[in-house]
């Protein structure tokens, strides 16, 4: 890859890494990553991927920026209040790195549009944190055989996993069905320390970059759980379920459906 003078400077700390180099940086610049959500997780993931020079970043989010988001959603600001989060994040990421093509998709993700939205991207990042969408994204990624880097946060705890369809377990291998809405914390209970999505989002962005350059081992078959109060990182093995309704031997889920239950999203 021929780098411009500017790119040579911008990516110098990548290029000198043996695991990245000019070749890895070229892969990064050719990569197409889709982020679901420009919220707590999507902001840091997109921020770091834009800084790294990921060529195309799509952001799917239909919400608008509210003041209560700014405690943790660092791509937005008081200047972008009421703007679509996808547009606000696009503005921020492109200001950081004009090499990056950011595509703002101001749509709500559902069973009818998800496959068409995902199909042109190399890697999908889940930053939604609501169960119906998490399962929908998992199922779509399994069907399309797309790598999925999933993150979740609540209060002082977060988790990350990488799902490589056909090579390890999926989200439904762990829990076949989403928990009933009553068991999920209500909005009042669903506080989150503002910095927590930064930690988890940075881990997700790291997984994405490792997948792009093809170095290191992906966090597949494991859930990495971070406990901020106890300062613990622990990895929990997720076994592959041969009877998984979506990625098992005889999948019972043949087409995508929407769950209508109301959950509170972070």
């Amino acid at each position, binding site marked *: 890859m021929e780098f411009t003078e500017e790119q040579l400077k911008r990516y110098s700390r990548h*290029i*000198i890494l043996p695991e990245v180099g*000019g070749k890895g940086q070229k892969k990064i610049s050719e990569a197409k990553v889709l982020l679901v959500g420009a919220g707590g997780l999507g902001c840091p993931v997109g921020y770091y991927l834009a800084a790294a020079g990921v060529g195309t970043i799509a952001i799917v989010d239909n919400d608008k920026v509210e003041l209560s988001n700014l405690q943790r959603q660092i791509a937005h600001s008081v200047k972008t209040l009421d703007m679509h989060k996808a547009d606000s994040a696009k503005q921020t990421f492109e200001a950081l790195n004009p090499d990056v093509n950011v595509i703002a998709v101001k749509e709500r993700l559902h069973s009818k549009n998800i496959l068409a939205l995902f199909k042109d991207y190399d890697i999908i990042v889940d930053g939604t944190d609501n169960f119906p969408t998490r399962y929908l994204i998992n199922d779509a990624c399994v069907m399309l055989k797309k790598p999925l880097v999933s993150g979740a946060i609540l209060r002082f705890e977060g988790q990350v996993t990488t799902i490589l369809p056909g090579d390890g377990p999926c989200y439904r291998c762990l829990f076949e069905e989403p928990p009933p809405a009553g068991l999920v914390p209500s909005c009042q209970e669903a506080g989150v320390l503002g910095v927590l999505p930064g930690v988890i989002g940075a881990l997700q962005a790291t997984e994405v970059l490792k997948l792009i350059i093809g170095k290191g081992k992906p966090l597949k078959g494991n859930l990495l759980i971070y406990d901020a109060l106890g300062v613990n990182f622990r990895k929990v093995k997720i076994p592959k379920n041969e009877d998984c309704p979506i990625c098992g031997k005889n999948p019972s889920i043949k087409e995508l459906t929407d769950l209508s239950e109301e959950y509170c999203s972070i």
Partner: protein
Amino acid sequence: MEDIKIDKKLDIRGQVCPYTLVRSKLGVESIEVGQVIEILLDYPEAADSIPKAMLNYGHSVLKVEKINPGEWIVQVRKEVED
């Protein structure tokens, strides 16, 4: 005098750290394993750091020579894929 076949020459005079290393790394990426690149540089610290870095990347340093006051050549044989 040994006779080393040079496959590529790279002039990075005028470049300072870390771009001396960035350009040398890209130079090595552009040749095949077994080929030799000769890097011409004038940043004093790089005469020391580039050979060290190349050894760390797993390549061989065949020669480091001061050819003029303030100018060095470093010959590197690529030993491993990038």
